[in-house]
């Protein structure tokens, strides 16, 4: 396959960026999108140019490191992560636009790499549970109904890649935050911090400068792990419940 790429190049956080056009040839349909970018980078290095910086780690679709808005879609045209997106999803001769996540809470570090540490700070605000120290507890000491375990697992699938923020026209982190809150709030282990968790994590989300939710549903469409839009509704319900229960 021969492709024409238009890639966002930006030297550092303060420098202005621009789309730069590159031609790549000899791309196999079985390559992943990141392997295609590796091919481009090898050529750039051989030519003595600066390679394109992009985030990646496991390349198995489970770590949440890779990003990229490809032709206007977070993680590209398939419902998966960029590392699991294959070039067979494109046609020979295509022009492909590659841009970084766009949100003021996710500033560009270099080229296609953005700083997603805002997500870490949301987790720090309440994405944990209280556990007694000592030896591991007996596995059946706390029974969890099957439906609750399924709901928790559905939300636990979130890998924190930030595609929801990238896809949202308001740069909102509601889907990520709701997934993390619901994952723990539905379980008995998450019970002790049920109210403070939702209040603190939503407050941390607001403080990071993410936008609000206008229920466009773009986040759930972009999510490679299929976190559903009603996840946000559940978080709203938890938040309203917590404001009634917690004395400030």
């Amino acid at each position, binding site marked *: 396959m021969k492709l024409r790429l238009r890639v966002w190049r930006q030297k550092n956080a303060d420098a202005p960026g621009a789309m730069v056009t590159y031609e790549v040839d000899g791309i196999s349909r079985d390559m992943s999108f990141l392997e295609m970018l590796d091919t481009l980078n090898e050529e750039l290095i051989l030519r003595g140019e600066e390679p394109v910086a992009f985030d990646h780690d496991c390349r198995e679709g489970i770590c949440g490191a890779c990003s990229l808005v490809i032709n206007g879609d977070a993680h590209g045209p398939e419902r998966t992560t960029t590392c699991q997106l294959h070039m067979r999803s494109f046609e020979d001769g295509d022009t492909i636009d590659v*841009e970084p996540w766009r949100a003021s809470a996710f500033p560009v570090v270099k080229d296609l790499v953005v700083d997603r540490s805002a997500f870490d700070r949301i987790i720090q605000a309440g994405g944990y549970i209280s556990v007694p120290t000592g030896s591991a507890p007996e596995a059946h000491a706390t029974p969890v109904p099957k439906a609750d375990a399924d709901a928790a697992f559905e939300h636990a699938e979130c890998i924190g890649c930030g595609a929801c923020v990238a896809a949202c026209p*308001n*740069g909102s982190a509601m889907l990520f935050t709701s997934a993390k809150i619901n994952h723990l709030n539905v379980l008995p282990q998450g019970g002790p911090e049920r109210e403070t968790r939702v209040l603190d994590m939503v407050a941390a989300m607001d403080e990071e400068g993410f*936008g609000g939710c206008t229920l466009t549903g773009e986040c759930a469409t972009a999510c490679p792990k299929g976190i559903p839009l009603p996840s946000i*509704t559940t978080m709203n319900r938890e938040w309203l419940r917590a404001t009634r229960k917690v004395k400030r």
Partner: protein
Amino acid sequence: MTRTLWGSTVGKKTVMAVTGLIMLGYLVVHMLGNLKIFFGSDEFNGYAHWLRTLGEPFLHYEWALWIVRVVLLAAVVLHGVSAYQLSRRDIRARPSKYVHKRRRASYATRTMRWGGIILGLFIVWHLLDLTTLTVNENAQPGRPYENVVATFSTPYGNAVYLTAMLALGLHIRHGFWSAAQTLGAGSVRRDRALKTAANGLALVLTVGFISVPVAVMTGVVS
């Protein structure tokens, strides 16, 4: 940390949802009252007068109307201020657009902000036209039937009203369903019912309101 109702984005959206539902409830009653115009001048004007005597003798003349007006004014102001503040925040959160553009979300969703501004301006005109009668040239106090006919006998009156009612329908279509999500009332199982209710309310209100100018234009009401 902002954990209060007014300080949080989730809380402010709750304010928008509640005030929106208050206004929606009012609009249903308002639309049904409007339909009395099809029973003629006496019944419509009599209904308008009855609204002023509502609650008597417990309430003084026009007090019930003024209570409704105060509640509605508070709802409109809170809804508008929340929308303005949240929109400012949303625009700040996504300062740079993607180079590769593609159409996002439904038409009703994308027009919520402009639709809201159109409705806000319409409310001002509507009050000046049919409540204070300031901009209604042939208006006579105490004769709402004749005043409605006068408004809808002018092309600009019809144009303004029809535009606003279409904006209203779109606003309710996304707004009602969104309010349910914001208040935590939505779920996967209830989603279809909520969307149907939102579309139904939008359609019934738009058609109900628009039936009045159409009736004047076609001569059914004159």
